[in-house]
């Protein structure tokens, strides 16, 4: 079934993937329900990644119960900077980044000061499931605060930019970098006003960005040009992304990778229902690349071959599929 308006026709010609098609033809087909918990629970993802020797932000501790809340000072005694993350939070909801201390109070990355009570209240809400889908009981991960690599310093307003790669049955097919802005409150979330910039999969160089649905060439806060920035360790990033397929067995995922100044690319989280805004950031449709994969790729190939295929086939701009 297909509505054939003029615009729909054009979008189809550009190989744009719509939500219905993403859900019906990719997520339902390639993402087994039983494997969702692997990515919905960030703690399990982290443990899986560690077991597979993939780099993740080091884990300081886990707060599982209200009783554990009082252990927080103990957990972070040696870590002035740390991140609190509800294991089931979605879309960056509920993440608190503590960038330092001010006396007995914790200073968040945006400069707000939280006393122990406020932090305890937040933790208790998170454990009770305020940030999880469906309000289920949750645990809070205490982990390393990423010191982000200076590459994107000129393109970020506070916060940590991250790289999102869509991986289809082990093949990286599209990538973008999400740049926090003042509007987004330092969060790398396109919904909240972060800039998304497409990345040429072949070279790892950024393309123009997008804010909302508007194409932009310069970062709104830092006013630096967005295009042409080389993402460091691009090879490693693609390799990590490709290997996340074996990690989870999910056929259609979004891999979020952050660049740490000291530790290089780290897996931040995986997403079994990655958004479609990446198409706007790349100004390219996902469907075209999915079809190229489905027609030509060997899905049993090892990760290195898959990365090579992706770099060869998905050099920007990718022209129409056969």
């Amino acid at each position, binding site marked *: *079934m*297909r*509505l054939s*308006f003029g*615009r*729909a026709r*054009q*979008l*189809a010609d*550009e190989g*744009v993937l*719509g*939500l*219905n*098609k993403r859900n*019906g*033809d990719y997520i339902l087909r390639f993402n087994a329900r039983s494997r969702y918990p692997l990515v919905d629970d960030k703690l399990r993802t982290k443990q899986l990644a560690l077991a597979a020797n993939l780099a993740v932000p080091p884990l300081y501790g886990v707060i599982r119960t209200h009783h554990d809340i009082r252990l927080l000072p103990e957990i972070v005694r040696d870590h002035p900077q740390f991140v609190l993350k509800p294991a089931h939070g979605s879309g960056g*909801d*509920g993440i608190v980044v503590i960038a330092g201390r001010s006396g007995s109070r914790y200073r968040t990355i945006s400069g707000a000061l939280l006393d122990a*009570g*406020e932090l305890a*209240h937040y933790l*208790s*809400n998170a454990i*009770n*499931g*305020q*940030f999880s889908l469906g*309000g289920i009981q949750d645990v809070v991960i205490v982990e390393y605060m990423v010191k982000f690599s200076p590459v994107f310093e000129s393109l970020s307003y506070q916060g940590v930019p991250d790289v999102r790669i869509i991986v289809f049955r082990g093949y990286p097919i599209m990538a973008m970098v999400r740049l926090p802005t003042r509007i987004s409150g330092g969060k790398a979330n396109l*919904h*909240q*006003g972060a800039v998304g910039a497409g990345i040429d999969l072949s070279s790892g160089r950024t393309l123009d960005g*997008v804010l909302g*649905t*508007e*194409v932009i060439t310069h970062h709104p806060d830092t006013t630096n040009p967005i295009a042409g920035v080389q993402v460091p360790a691009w090879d490693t990033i693609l390799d990590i992304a490709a290997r996340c397929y074996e990690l989870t067995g999910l056929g259609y995922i979004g891999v979020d990778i952050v660049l740490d100044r000291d530790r290089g690319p780290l897996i931040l989280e995986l997403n079994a229902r990655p958004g*479609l805004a990446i*198409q*706007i950031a790349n*100004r*390219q*449709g996902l469907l075209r690349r999915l079809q190229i994969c489905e027609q030509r790729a060997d899905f049993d190939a090892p990760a290195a071959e898959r990365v090579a295929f992706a770099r060869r086939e998905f050099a920007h701009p990718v022209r129409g599929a056969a």
Partner: protein
Amino acid sequence: MNKKHIYFLAAFLTVLSIGLFAYKAEVLGFPVRPQQQTEIWNIEAAVRFRPGPAAVKATLRIPSLTPGFSLLDENFISRGFGVTTSSSPAGREAQWSAREASGTQTMYYRAIVYRDPMRLAEDTTPPFPTPPELDEPSRVALEALIAEARRQSADVASFTIQLLRRINQGDQDPYVRVFLKHGESQADRAQLATIFLAGAQIPARVAHGVFLRSAPGAVQPESILEVHDGVQWLYFNPRTLQQGLPPDFFIWWRGEYPIAEVDGGHDLDVTLAVQGNLMPAMVVAERRAEAAGSHAVDFSLFALPIATQAVYSVLLMIPVGALVIVVLRNFVGVKTFGTFMPVLIALAFRETRLVWGIMLFAIIVSLGLLIRFYLEKLRLLLVPRLTCVLTVVVLLMVAVSVLSQKLGLQPGLSLALFPIVIIAMTIERMSIVWEERGASEAIQEGVGSLIVAALAYVVMGINWLEHLVFVFPELLLLVIVATLLAGRYTGYRLLELHRFKGVLPEVPR
């Protein structure tokens, strides 16, 4: 699952649903439109007589073969008499009997009849009649009459008309005059015609009935001549010679017998009355299905107590409302709080009416949000906080109701169905979205939910649809079909056409 499977299932369910629907609507006459009325007639025969000293038995012929009409219901009313019904050559008979009775007795036979085009004169082809036994002059006259009429006619119908014409001109006709010893009533002419027709070996009989027209007071029975042409019964009005059964003529009994007889009594008097009326089509259909031995009614919602029926008439509309959500979410792409929250809000609107409902919803949610933001400062744990918001919502509703009552605004009262828990959850969700994603997103989703709810309300409020789904719940299978097909729709959503326009090259090719 492959698509073929789904299409097959969809086709199967469609056929099943439409088939059941058609059977109930066409065969059983379930009403397709709400408040549909069926024309019915109450017919009544009052049998009055004075009983003699001994046992008394009154016989009334009652309708059996009634082409064009069916009996919906009948009952017998008498005081102190036993009643039985039986078949007789004249049709059916009701017999009232008692060992003794004194004073004028009145028995009533009452029936409800409705028009039923499916009902035909279904009796079997009659045997050839035996020729009438006549004295010599009569026999000669009859033979001459038949010979003459036969010459001037082509078939049974025209032959009958010839005969009737001659009977009508009885005084001038030399042959007919021989037979004419009765008065001028229709029954007698028809009776005479049956004798002539028997002489010509054509089966015929006299049918007596009434015209179903509302008339005050008693109606007189009229007669019609039924003639069998070897294939079917033909009808003739013996006076006007009109052929065919008048559409509103209801045949009560047949033959030369009177409508009633009394044995052991005297001063028999029978009055017939007809009263046209309208009855809800559903009631007629129900009784009709019952009479036809169909279980469609036994297993329909009408078998439930009225209060339960009222609940189901609302419940059955929920899938329809949900279908609206499917369309708005999967084809248009509207964002809402919770998947089916708008349907529940729409249900609440049924109680409050739309405009007031939207106002009420907006007021309660905004006040609730304010309180929720305040509670946030108090750092309550999640479940106690939700409970607190819930309680506040209930209190707000009480306040709004009392206030609107005091101000003389009516609609505030009927809040019974307003989904308190849903509203509390909405407030909670909205406040989180508000904090996490900003006010614009929260308000956008809130307004989206309200628009969807309003649309669902409008669709669920279509009276005709509600009636259809209630009388024909099998139509909900079509909703399943729609969801099956919509579930495989992988095209773009309407709002995506706007969302992804940035992907398109700037200069259209």
